[in-house]
């Protein structure tokens, strides 16, 4: 008769074993995915277009951010309409000298162009964009019709 004796916290080590590590990782990924779906109101399908963007808002403005390392501010083209924004440009990677022998080459260069539809109307005249340390930050003030407006509730 075979008797298995397990220590008091066998579950902890059992469920942390390499076999379960894959399941744990998948669980974390699923949690993260469901997180992002629950909060996004007008979430587009993952566009798969460079650059990846994050779109935020407060009462007055939309904020669009993208990571564009190695691209100077004056190399980014941004144009807006009353409800969309287009971000385009080119990432160039310098060609190094003749004697350079590469060990790794993971960075990519190329052109990019992406159009995003905004959830509401914006005031195109007041849009501001900054690129600092490779992070693009675009602030788009909402058009007055888009801003939340307080309505007083009358009693009679």
């Amino acid at each position, binding site marked *: 008769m075979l008797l298995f004796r397990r220590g008091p916290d066998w579950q902890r080590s059992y469920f942390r074993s390499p076999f379960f590590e894959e399941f744990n990782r998948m669980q974390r990924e699923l949690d993260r995915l469901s997180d*992002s779906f629950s*909060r*996004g*109101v*007008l*979430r*587009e399908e*993952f*566009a*798969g*277009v*460079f*650059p*990846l*963007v*994050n*779109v*935020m*808002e*407060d*009462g007055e403005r*939309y*904020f669009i*951010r993208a*990571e*564009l*390392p*190695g*691209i*100077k501010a004056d190399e980014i083209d941004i144009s807006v309409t009353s409800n969309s924004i287009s971000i385009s440009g*080119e*990432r160039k*990677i310098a060609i*190094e*000298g003749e*004697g*350079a*022998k*590469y*060990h*790794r*080459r*993971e*960075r*990519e*260069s*190329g*052109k*990019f*162009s992406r159009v995003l539809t905004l*959830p509401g109307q914006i005031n195109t005249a007041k849009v501001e964009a900054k*690129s600092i*340390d*490779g*992070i693009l*930050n675009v602030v788009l003030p909402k058009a007055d019709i888009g801003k939340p407006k307080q309505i007083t509730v009358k009693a009679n």
Partner: protein
Amino acid sequence: MTDTETKALQVKEKAELAHPMEQTRPGLVFTPDVDIFETEKEMIILADMPGVKSDNLTIDLREAVLTLDGEVQAPESKGEVEIFREYRTGKYYRQFYLSEVIDQAKIEAEMKDGVLRLKLPKVEAAKPRKISVKAS
């Protein structure tokens, strides 16, 4: 130039560090994309680390292990509500074992537009010396 059209830049998900050491503060850790090449005199590492300022970057070289550690501040302010998020923000961390012996005193680092350019001059003795083969 053989091609007249520049190809379109493909989107890549940010690579999370596979086995991060536990940090005292919670947060994501990403591995930056790098280009590494060497010339006769030096090794050069170019790393994409957007959002890292030179003050928040730590470069450490000891016992032939080079560590790059760049802190990133979340750009969102308190009042902001998320509409959609395609990428996450976190620090950048990567380690390399250097096969070359480096002259530590002459290391140069420059951060520009979120790209680190790290110049690691090789120690004089490590430069390749041509050995002529005599025919007998």
